[in-house]
């Protein structure tokens, strides 16, 4: 995988992870282009598209788009399930995750992603093992997880 982007329906970037060296300028350009392309697609359309020399695999969960760029020989369907497994991990960790969890606990979203995917490859697919690693780390920090008040009315992703 070359990169993963999370963005909202309004086109706001919520998380970006790059597994190939690119300049900030290029990253911004790619993000702008892709967000535009993906948002323009209709709901029933296929989740894969060719873009430059990459394949884009994306899926929408509630208000958030998860979008991965993979290389020519990579498997589209398994990438789709990478996205799903990541959403499941977030959901399990935050408990009914919504977009705002990711906005305000972005660091957790990154840490979970690092446990799951490293250098663009799947590192650990077991939900238990990934969350164990994160929870172990949480134990090291004295204090509990902060959760957001529910009145903010953000849709759950799952």
């Amino acid at each position, binding site marked *: 995988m070359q990169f993963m982007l999370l963005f909202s329906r309004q086109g706001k*970037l*919520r*998380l*970006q992870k790059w*597994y190939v*060296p690119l300049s900030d300028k290029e990253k911004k350009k790619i993000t702008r282009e892709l967000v535009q392309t993906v948002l323009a697609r209709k709901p*029933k*359309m*296929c*989740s*894969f*598209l*060719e873009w430059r*020399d990459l394949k884009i695999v994306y899926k929408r969960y509630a208000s958030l788009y998860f979008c991965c760029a993979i290389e020519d*020989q990579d*498997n*589209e*369907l*398994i990438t*789709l*399930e*990478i996205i*799903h*497994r990541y959403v499941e991990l977030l959901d399990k960790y935050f408990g009914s995750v919504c977009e705002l969890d990711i*906005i*305000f*606990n*972005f*660091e957790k979203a*990154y*840490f979970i992603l*690092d446990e799951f995917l*490293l*250098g*663009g*490859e*799947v*590192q*650990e*697919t*077991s*939900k*238990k*093992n990934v969350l164990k*690693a994160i929870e*172990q*780390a949480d134990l*090291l*920090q*004295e*204090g*509990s*997880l*902060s959760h957001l008040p529910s009145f903010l009315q953000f849709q759950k992703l799952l």
Partner: protein
Amino acid sequence: MDAMATGEGRREGVRDRSRVCKSKEAEIKRINKELANIRSKFKGDKALDGYSKKKYVCKLLFIFLLGHDIDFGHMEAVNLLSSNKYTEKQIGYLFISVLVNSNSELIRLINNAIKNDLASRNPTFMCLALHCIANVGSREMGEAFAADIPRILVAGMDSVKQSAALCLLRLYKASPDLVPMGEWTARVVHLLNDQHMGVVTAAVSLITCLCKKNPDDFKTCVSLAVSRLSRIVSSASTDLQDYTYYFVPAPWLSVKLLRLLQCYPPPEDAAVKGRLVECLETVLNKAQEPPKSKKVQHSNAKNAILFETISLIIHYDSEPNLLVRACNQLGQFLQHRETNLRYLALESMCTLASSEFSHEAVKTHIDTVINALKTERDVSVRQRAADLLYAMCDRSNAKQIVSEMLRYLETADYAIREEIVLKVAILAEKYAVDYSWYVDTILNLIRIAGDYVSEEVWYRVLQIVTNRDDVQGYAAKTVFEALQAPACHENMVKVGGYILGEFGNLIAGDPRSSPPVQFSLLHSKFHLCSVATRALLLSTYIKFINLFPETKATIQGVLRAGSQLRNADVELQQRAVEYLTLSSVASTDVLATVLEEMPPFPERESSILAKLKRKKGPGAGSALDDSRRDPSSHDINGGVEPTPSTVSTPSPSADLLGLRAAPPPAAPPAPSGAGNLLVDVFSDSPAAQPGLGPSPEEAFLSELEPPAPESPMALLADPAPAADAGPEDIGPPIPEADELLNKFVCRNNGVLFENQLLQIGVKSEFRQNLGRMYLFYGNKTSVQFQNFSPTVLAVQTKRVASQVDGGAQVQQVLNIECLRDFLTPPLLSVRFRYGGTPQSLTLKLPVTINKFFQPTEMAAQDFFQRWKQLSLPQQEAQKIFKANHPMDAEVTKAKLLGFGSALLDNVDPNPENFVGAGIIQTKALQVGCLLRLEPNAQAQMYRLTLRTSKEPVSRHLCELLAQQF
């Protein structure tokens, strides 16, 4: 409290920003205020404690992720790395990972902190450090850690091993030279046997990447991967516990293992192969079972494995049974209600279409695919359908496919029109049985999607019409009809203008298309056209004056009009002036010579195909050749990926140009003035051609010049003053000339000829398409040779002394340039007077096409790919012959090297055989050559096979080389 405080603090600030700030300006103002605050904290006199540092670094990160630039705080983040508190360290690492900065002093500090954490033996810290290296992946980090990580990888704890494997992979991708190979390879391969599935999952990715560079070192991974895969595939859906995903056991690991296997040919060990085939069958069987869950995740995971399995089956391309089963499976998906599956099935079938075993099976789905092209709502799916139609096209279904694609074009999305146009043009050309169909198709293209018909496409139709006289009349009639449409595309005017100018006379007999009618039809379009088209039409008009003298007065009137003679465009003005003068000054004969019909274009790779490749990258020209199922090509191709590459493709123009027409075009027009229309038409690089627009002054004049007749042999040398007699003075070569020539096929130096009077020695060297040859004429007698004059036909030579004293030697230097491929060597004629009697002698100069060979090294895979691409029957030449010399491998090797090709080791599965590759360099074109020599010691026979992109070259090289053994 730590986290609470951070979270709260940030959330307070943030909620203000993102909720309250309605306008962009307000947000920026707010953020700048916050940044100023953080900056002052960092710069303040009071040293910040770890907690506050973390808080502010985290805020900076947040601001960065909102899309604002951050240019400070790096130092504070680096400080956090050495904190003892996990959360502080973690935020520090996150900041570094997200906001990498190639600030060299910082990198040193960061590396230091990483080093400490790696040495800490605390797995949580080690993982943080490894994640950071994997996220940044810079060269500096590679230099610092690439040597240490393998140790952690083979000896660390499980969770650390996983991170170490992928960390190493990232460093390897960034700077492969830094990652040491060697002693730990075997242990890495053995990670495939690890108890911990997570470790295996991470390790497979690493091995897949590393084995591409050193396949041999990692060869043992194949059997380990097969047994691991077999265990997963045959396990029940609950066996693997948390590694089972929606009832599918370890889908990610399965896909990765199948990918790894695609780096290798099918296993040689029968037991391993058997086990693997069993696995593949199990996957195909499971695909038919009813789903264990209705969830899309279940079906996706299951099908991900299925598609990867099919990729592996296609990669092996050796199991007809599996290939056909794969094709049937994909056929079911073509009508699946999930768009994603339909998309992938179309995509995957494209590669199946290029396998000789499944091509026919793919073709049975033609109606479904055509239907997809018509009814799919998603353009990217339609695109795949169009690709598949292109890939499954062959002579049997070309008409149907082309007409469907044409119909689709009428409503196609703008984004893909140009590509469809190119594809239709290629298919129409490649599979044309009658040329009227081809012409109709291209004109239809212009009619339907004129804007998307690029120059390459309409140049091509002109080339083909020019070269095929059986279609010229039809083409003239058809364009004439097409031009009668009230609104026709400018490209149609161009094609029509050119064709009528060349071949309008063929339909002039019909009163409905008499010359004046043709002219007024064309001229009715003139005023609406661009400058380039008008320039072309002016050329057509002058051709009309030549073809139809009765139109002269009318056309001269048009040329004379002020709008032409004083046209603001210099090109049009010049054409009008010169054509007018030409038509009034020149005699009919001169006019006829100047405006003679265009000579045939030299055969070359279709410029359209080149364009499609540029557009699509490798793999675009993958339509299957009919001759692909040639059994003789198969034994050598076993187990090689069928993906075509962009290099040295077989010329698809072969069908229409050159090869089927008996004599190759003899007189290629001199490719002079780069701007002229003639050159435009057969240049295949749009970058190099200025198009039809304003061009250099000499441009259209040279267009009018009849092409300079050139020797078909096309060797032209040093433009020194010619001292040669006319070619007609040269006698036929002596009977032994061929035998003498053969001695020099594989070597460059030696004695070319000797009798009682004269000895001729040769020394030569060749580089690319240039050569220099020294000829040494030795007088063996004691009497002077007089009027000594050695001349070489078609090679201009430097004069040599006309007297050669007894016992003396004179030297002659020839500079040789190979302009295009040739079959017969130049002749060397030597005359002199010896004791009053004239002597004359004609030899073949030892310059054969193979002298311009440039050896090409390539890997086995590339070789097979190219070999497959050159699979048209005309491209191959084969000879089976008896050995004339003792069969010694070393001698054979030396001869093949002398012949000029590179010898490729480890390509042919049989080590007795010789495989070579090279490129023949000529000025006009390059011809890629592949050769294979199979000695049979028992029978004392050889089989020699040559494949090149040009038929005459294959045959000629084969003949030359066969005489050497």
